[in-house]
């Protein structure tokens, strides 16, 4: 019997059940779907006889201007080329991703503090079994989220006489791999810190840094930011999930399936590297605070 695999199965089953019976999951999913709904509704209200007119909806006007400033006009045009669903998908995804990752980091810190992880690893399991179980739970709920979003958006599309384009479906696949990378960063944040709060702070710090870096790379091109080191940005981008996400998204736009698959693979590789480092750190530090 593979003891670790068995422990991962047992602990993840329990975690999945626990998540299903807590209101947090339903609140996060509702917030995500509501955000998606408002964005789709806003898009529909921004359409006039000449097509999409951001000016018709103040919220959309603000969003479009902000995104153009951060990522460039081409990005915005691409984002809305299939209608509102791609944009709504990513915006709906953010609160759910934050809920899943932050709740997992919090639980890791809390359960480590009260000795629950220690109790679990007294048996034929170890700290790695615990975080892998947590990862399995998060992946399962990412599938649940994508399933719910697909059904909800599909119904919305039918009702409003629109269609979900191929980029939407490709993006769902990217989201799975992107989530895996963020979950891995959540795990390493938990492993290297001693409390739930410091774990969450580290994870948010890393995520914000990657976002700034991603936006900064556009800003440099636009000449807005001069004090951000190009060299530093070049180095750090290789460990940023957003870098591969952006490349994968761009490759869909260009119709380059090979680049798309390579970037998914690189996201997977990045996640594995982070998980291996987490395993080694946890082995050295142990599960006791």
């Amino acid at each position, binding site marked *: *019997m593979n*003891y*670790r695999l*068995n*422990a991962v*199965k*047992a*602990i993840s*089953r*329990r975690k999945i059940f626990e998540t299903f*019976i807590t209101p947090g999951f339903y609140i996060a999913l509702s917030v995500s779907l509501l955000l998606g709904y408002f964005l789709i509704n806003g898009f529909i209200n921004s359409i006039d006889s000449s097509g999409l007119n951001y000016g018709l909806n103040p919220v959309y006007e603000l969003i479009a201007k902000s995104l153009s400033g951060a990522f460039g006009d081409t990005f915005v045009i691409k984002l809305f080329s299939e209608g509102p669903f791609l944009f709504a998908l990513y915006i709906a995804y953010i609160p759910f991703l934050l809920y899943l990752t932050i709740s997992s980091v919090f639980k890791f810190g*809390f*359960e480590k503090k*009260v*000795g*629950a992880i*220690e*109790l*679990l*690893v*007294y*048996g*034929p*399991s*170890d700290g790695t079994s615990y975080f892998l179980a947590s990862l399995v739970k998060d992946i399962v709920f990412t599938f649940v989220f994508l399933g719910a979003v697909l059904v909800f958006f599909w119904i919305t599309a039918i009702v409003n006489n629109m269609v979900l384009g191929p980029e939407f479906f490709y993006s769902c696949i990217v989201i799975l791999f992107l989530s895996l990378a963020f979950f891995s960063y959540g795990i390493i944040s938990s492993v290297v810190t001693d409390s739930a709060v410091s774990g969450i702070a580290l994870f948010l710090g890393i995520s914000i840094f990657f976002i700034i870096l991603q936006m900064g790379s556009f800003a440099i091109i636009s000449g807005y930011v001069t004090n951000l080191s190009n060299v530093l940005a070049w180095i750090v981008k290789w460990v940023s999930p957003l870098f591969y996400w952006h490349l994968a998204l761009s490759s869909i736009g260009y119709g380059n399936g090979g680049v798309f698959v390579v970037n998914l693979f690189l996201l997977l590789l990045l996640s594995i590297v982070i998980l291996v480092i987490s395993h080694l750190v946890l*082995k050295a530090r*142990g*599960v*006791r605070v």
Partner: protein
Amino acid sequence: MIQTEGLTKKYGDFTAVDNVDLSIPAGEIYGFLGPNGAGKTSTIMMLLGITSPTAGRIELFGEEYTSGRLDLRRRIGVVPEKHPVGMWSWMTAGEYLSFFADIFGLKNPGKRIEDLLTQVKLIGVANKRISEFSRGMLQKLSIVRALLHDPDILFLDEPISGLDPIGIKQVRDLIIAENREGRTIFISSHLLSEMEKICHRVAIIFNGKLLAEDSMDVLLLKLARDREIDIDLEEVPDGLAEEIEKLDFVNSVSVTETTIAVKVPKEGDYRKDISRFLIKKELIPLQFKEKSISLEEAFVTITQDNVKLLAGVGGKA
């Protein structure tokens, strides 16, 4: 069953466990004693594979043990001092045990759970939520959890700490019953009087060093400086204590009402000599009682004056 050689754990410059050699044979109730901060928990964490030793080696069931040996870890049952606060409180006792049975990969654990809950008299609350359990009930549930997979050795960390007298008796009886079934029991505690009642062998750790490891009787005998004989008389005449004290084998004498406590060297039996002396004085001893040193007294002796005393008792200083 468990053997350690030169087990050492350092945290920076601080040495929590210093070159400890343990030897725990199968079938024993082994007490691992020491005050708080002596290095008990650090040693146990290494034995359980939760932390790695800085130096030294651990042999478990005759095999080299490292933290990655999940197969060996499966043969251990552990009862921590406290149930993790706020954890799994929404589960019933049955669900909680099923969850752990699942981690151990037990097939159809229902019967085993039922039997163990019956044994500890918790079967009536199998469907009650853990949040409603008292400290004693949680401790018993914890023992059941640790026994689910029928481990070869059971580790208990302060198993009776914080329990009421009834809880203490129940847990003590359970430990003895498990040992009678052939299970090796390793108990870490600072409650010496309780350990004295159940342990076959004890090890005393202090400031990270193992000061003694021996069977309870041998350890107590070796650590006693004197043997105390309490003699009950009808009445104690004036000056008798002083006269007894003059006997060449007597170290000291004290009198409490009708009882004379005579301290003699621990080697040799002086009861006959004392009887003869009393009869010569026309006093009839009503009762002779030999008072042995308690584990608590032994512990104080060993920790305060260990180096000289332990030179010849098989312990390590």
